[in-house]
């Protein structure tokens, strides 16, 4: 293993992408991922690639669509509101079977939200986000080291299955510095073979290639055929990490930065005599359902720790299918867990308490709400004035 160096998450990601053979980057400024385009603008040309600061997120993802059509390892990065804008391009990329890397360094939402790190885009990432039936592979790093090494994995998976791959990170991972090392040799994209589907200069008179997402009469067959790939990926590509799950009474489930706080909770909890374990999905799609089921086998309860208001917990419940009680320890809109805030939830899950556990119905108990129009403020027609 090479020596560890201190790197900022966003820069490790950008350098990792270039090392992984990425030679096209398009993006639009948005906090907290700005170091990615900044790094690319400084280094991509030297690597022999192209950097374009696009006029919008929409344009950026479509530039990636164009570059990916040529078989070039291409990527864009953004943060939550920007990734919302990219959904048009992502569904086209999925439909045109184009490999590429999309990075979301998540921030608090909805809307403009905040620039604090968050995990509110789990649904958007794992449920498609754009229109139609499709998936993207979603990788969730929890360290700067993984942030730097996942671009290689992402491009390899994206190309293997001809589909977009997303790295779902968050603002804290992007902004933090950490000791890390790259675990792969730099890829020389000039030495990579060509794809038989890519558009290119065609000196040898090969058959014409078209890249398109419009399938007309073939759409049903096409979507059903692609679903076989999705099924195969669900079977073969789930990735995860477990910690002390064999004997745990309470299994924590968390991805990304939240899982780091859970690592601490496992250690602290066991110091207090609580048998806590951790299951960390690394691929959010495909979700490692089977592995989760076996990790939870001996647990009395499962607690999801997520920086969102009950998104990951849905996949956990689907995977466990009622076999275990599943609770939620939630930190929405830029809130951050630490070891100390998780343990009360662990205790509640064991003893039937409520501290630290979020339940939407309990949250709304005794609450009623109705917004009413008020004619005493004037009526809507007032603006017509003299007309």
């Amino acid at each position, binding site marked *: 293993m090479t020596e560890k*160096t*201190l790197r900022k998450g966003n820069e490790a990601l950008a350098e990792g992408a270039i090392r992984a053979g990425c030679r096209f980057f398009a993006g639009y400024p948005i906090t907290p991922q700005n170091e990615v385009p900044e790094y690319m603008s400084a280094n991509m040309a030297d690597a022999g690639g192209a950097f374009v600061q696009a006029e919008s997120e929409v344009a950026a993802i479509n530039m990636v669509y164009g570059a990916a059509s040529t078989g070039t390892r291409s990527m864009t990065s953004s943060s939550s509101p920007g990734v919302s804008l990219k959904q048009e391009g992502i569904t086209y990329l999925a439909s045109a079977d184009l490999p590429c890397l999309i990075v979301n360094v998540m921030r608090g939402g909805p809307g403009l939200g905040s*620039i604090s790190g968050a995990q509110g885009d789990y649904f958007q990432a794992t449920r498609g986000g754009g229109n139609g039936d499709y998936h993207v592979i979603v990788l969730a790093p929890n360290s700067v080291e993984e942030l730097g090494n996942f671009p290689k994995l992402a491009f390899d998976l994206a190309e293997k299955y001809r589909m977009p791959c997303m790295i779902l990170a968050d603002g804290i991972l992007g902004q933090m510095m950490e*000791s890390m090392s790259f675990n792969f040799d730099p890829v020389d994209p000039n030495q990579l073979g060509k794809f038989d589907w890519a558009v290119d200069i065609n000196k040898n008179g090969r058959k014409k290639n078209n890249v398109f997402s419009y399938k007309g009469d073939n759409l049903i067959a096409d979507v059903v055929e692609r679903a076989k790939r999705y099924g195969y990926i669900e079977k073969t590509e789930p990735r995860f990490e477990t910690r002390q799950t064999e004997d745990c009474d309470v299994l924590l489930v968390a991805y990304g930065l939240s899982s780091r706080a859970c690592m601490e909770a496992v250690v602290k909890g066991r110091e207090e005599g609580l048998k806590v374990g951790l299951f960390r999905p690394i691929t959010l799609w495909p979700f490692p359902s089977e592995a989760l089921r076996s990790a939870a086998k001996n647990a009395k309860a499962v607690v999801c720790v997520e920086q969102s208001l009950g998104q990951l917990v849905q996949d956990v419940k689907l995977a466990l299918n009622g076999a275990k009680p599943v609770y939620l320890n939630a930190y929405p809109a830029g809130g951050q867990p630490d070891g100390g805030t998780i343990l009360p939830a662990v205790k509640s899950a064991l003893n039937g308490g409520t501290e630290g556990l979020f339940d939407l119905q309990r949250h709304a108990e005794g609450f009623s709400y109705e917004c009413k129009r008020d004619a005493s403020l004037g009526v809507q027609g007032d603006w017509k004035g003299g007309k």
Partner: protein
Amino acid sequence: MYQGIRIAGFGGQGVVSAGILLAQAGVEGKKNASWLPSYGPEMRGGTANCSVVISDGEVYTPIVAVPDTVIVMNEPSLPKFEPLIKKGGLLIINSSLINSRPTRTDIKSVCVPCNEIAEKIGMDRIATLVAIGAFCRLTGAVSVESVVHAMKKVYKRAKPEMLELNKKALDAGFEAVK
């Protein structure tokens, strides 16, 4: 050894880059380290702070909610960060700029007149490095030598004279908390 540290002060006192320096010093000492700034609009002025973790083993979350050590370089940071410190933890106070005194008795508080010491060395703006020198001695989390090694990587464009001054500040801080 697992040290969660918060360093806080005015923007311009170099608390954020001092944090990077500490994290890099951790790496120089073959430890794992993380650094996290408080980023966003507040970095445009006013009080800045950052979180650093140095660990023999793995680093958990880089967010240091309950620090082992807090270094405060200006007055407003003291009431803000003193309450967070872990029981039995350490508080290093820049007594040149902070007149108030800590109220907690369950932590160890050490006053270091960082700006006065820095001025004697010849440069007021290296006061935060004096505090880092004190931190090295009080915690043993990193050595002054590691910080000196780290400087060459973190302050890449610094002139040799400047690095020499920085080293003096570290040493003076180290000596000040004998």
